[in-house]
């Protein structure tokens, strides 16, 4: 992607100007997206992203620059500019590069380039037809395919030289149903770290039914009366609350700034012994997996909370150094336009001993939040507010009527100890996570679980 001699000169120039660490990140990615809306193919876009990121560390100061002009003179000038604002130090010499192969266990059996775009267009039209077949109350359908090949090269002043190429495939479907009292949306958006085989193997009927039936059930629903009550959170995307309210505060990017309720809590109980939470970058073909992170460290499995005890943060090079913890291979960035910081990969709460029926049966009056929607969180305090996309009242230990408009409100570290039952039905769901280093593919997940008490917003 870029000559070794050029990269060596860039790193050498960074060190010569006083940086104690220099890194070059080269990206050459292709992306393609096709969107359908209102029965029409609305957008088809293809693109190539190419550029070079240069990172210099002066102690805890990060000087980051990038350029889509990969000419040697342009990169050397960029590096000199970055170093100009750093503190003067004794110059070191870069270590010779050691090219190390990257193990890649993620299957790609159908290369997207070999598949005609017309097949993708027909797939979207079929998804539209299947979704609308659930009844005339389905008023609108939106669907999209997104594919990406991301090739990166990382080299640094310690001699690291690693290259990898990954493929991502994802489909998004939203169905809007209307039955009197305003529109309601049902959504599905599975994705994999893999090739076009994902789309060929996808059960389109099941995908369409998931979005359409969820929208239809909520379109006919009433409202729940708000208050503090027990809640059963559904499996899969329900894990978004843990991701936002606990996962982000466990990143060293928050810990190093003292902006997390988990600062100084390593080794301490933060949840009941029933709860184990993991962030795993190694799961085969999972959307959030990374053979190596964006600093070149191998992606790995990190146990965050083990039987209720906080065991680890998620760290990048700088965060690990500042917080004094080992690196976890969690440095990530959207593209060469971002310096890497600690981010989640596939984050989930592990399975427990309970069934969903047991959890429902243990509640006299509460809410079953089967599917979660969007929300917001303050990572410094862990305060969150999430909409329930598909919810049901629980009355007398049984599932009762569907309810709409519910929100879950709380603080992550306060809610964690109130998780008292965890199901066997672990499921993972693909998402995009936005933070300081841009948008990266992440997986959230959990089994169904019971929170003994949480504030539910309603009417």
């Amino acid at each position, binding site marked *: 992607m870029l000559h070794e001699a050029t990269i060596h000169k860039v790193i050498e120039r960074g060190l010569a100007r006083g940086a104690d660490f220099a890194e070059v990140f080269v990206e050459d990615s292709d992306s393609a997206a096709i969107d359908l809306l209102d029965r*029409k193919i609305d957008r088809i876009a293809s693109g190539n992203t190419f550029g070079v990121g240069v990172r210099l560390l002066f102690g805890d*100061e990060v000087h980051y620059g990038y350029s889509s002009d990969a000419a040697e003179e342009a990169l050397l000038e960029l590096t000199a500019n970055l170093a100009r*604002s750093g503190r003067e130090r004794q110059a070191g010499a870069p270590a010779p590069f050691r090219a190390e192969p990257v193990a890649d266990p993620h299957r790609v059996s159908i290369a997207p380039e070999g598949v005609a775009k017309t097949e993708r267009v027909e797939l979207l039209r079929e998804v539209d037809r299947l979704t609308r077949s659930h009844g005339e109350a389905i008023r609108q359908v939106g669907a999209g395919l997104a594919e990406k090949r991301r090739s990166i090269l990382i080299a640094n002043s310690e001699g690291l030289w690693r290259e990898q190429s990954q493929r991502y495939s994802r489909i998004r479907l939203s169905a809007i149903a209307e039955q009197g009292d305003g529109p309601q949306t049902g959504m599905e958006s599975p994705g994999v770290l893999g090739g076009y085989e994902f789309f060929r193997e996808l059960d389109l009927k099941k995908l369409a039914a998931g979005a359409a039936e969820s929208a239809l059930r909520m379109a006919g629903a009433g409202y729940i009366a708000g208050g503090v009550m027990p809640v059963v959170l559904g499996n899969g995307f329900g894990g978004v609350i843990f991701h936002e309210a606990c996962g982000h505060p466990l990143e060293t990017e928050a810990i190093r*700034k003292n902006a997390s309720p988990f600062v100084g809590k390593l080794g301490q109980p933060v949840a009941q012994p029933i709860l184990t939470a993991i962030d795993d970058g190694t799961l085969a073909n999972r959307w959030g997996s990374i053979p190596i992170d964006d600093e070149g460290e191998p992606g790995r499995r990190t146990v965050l909370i083990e039987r209720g005890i906080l065991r680890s943060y998620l760290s990048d090079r700088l965060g690990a150094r500042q917080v004094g913890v080992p690196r976890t291979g969690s440095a990530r960035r959207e593209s060469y336009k971002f310096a890497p910081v600690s981010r989640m990969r596939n984050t989930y709460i592990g399975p427990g001993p309970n069934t969903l029926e047991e959890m429902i049966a243990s509640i006299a009056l509460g809410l079953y939040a089967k599917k979660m929607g969007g929300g917001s969180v303050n990572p410094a305090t862990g305060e969150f507010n999430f909409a329930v996309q598909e919810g049901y009242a629980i009355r007398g230990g049984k599932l009762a009527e569907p309810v709409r408009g519910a929100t879950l409100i709380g603080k992550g570290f306060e809610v964690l100890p109130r998780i008292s039952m965890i199901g066997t039905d672990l499921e993972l769901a693909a998402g995009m996570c936005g933070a300081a280093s841009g948008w990266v593919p992440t997986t959230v997940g959990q089994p169904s679980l019971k929170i003994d008490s949480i504030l539910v917003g309603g009417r």
Partner: protein
Amino acid sequence: MPVADPVAFVLALAREHREPEADVLLARDQHLTVKVLNGRVENVEQATALGLGIRVVREGRSGVAFTERLEPEALERAFRAAQENAPLLDPTEVVLARDLPAVADPETLGLFNPELEALGVEE
């Protein structure tokens, strides 16, 4: 090697392929960001990004593609992708308003202070 005039290069391709309508957008972005935390410089970011977008319009169907590489092969690849995308779209119905209001001259809006160009990174 990047081509000297990528816009002219792509428009020449469009003429060569007898595309009835094509447009090209070349964008160049430069920025400098300095972040300070607890009284200390924590982060300095300096960047230059180039990108070229291509739109090919055929019978109301707009195929688009972009590239951040400006070598001839990359520009040709992006152009072919835009060409390939256009016929797959459903036509867009566009109703243009008549007598559009005049666009203000950007110079008169005071959106940019040219004195900032003279500031160095150290400052």
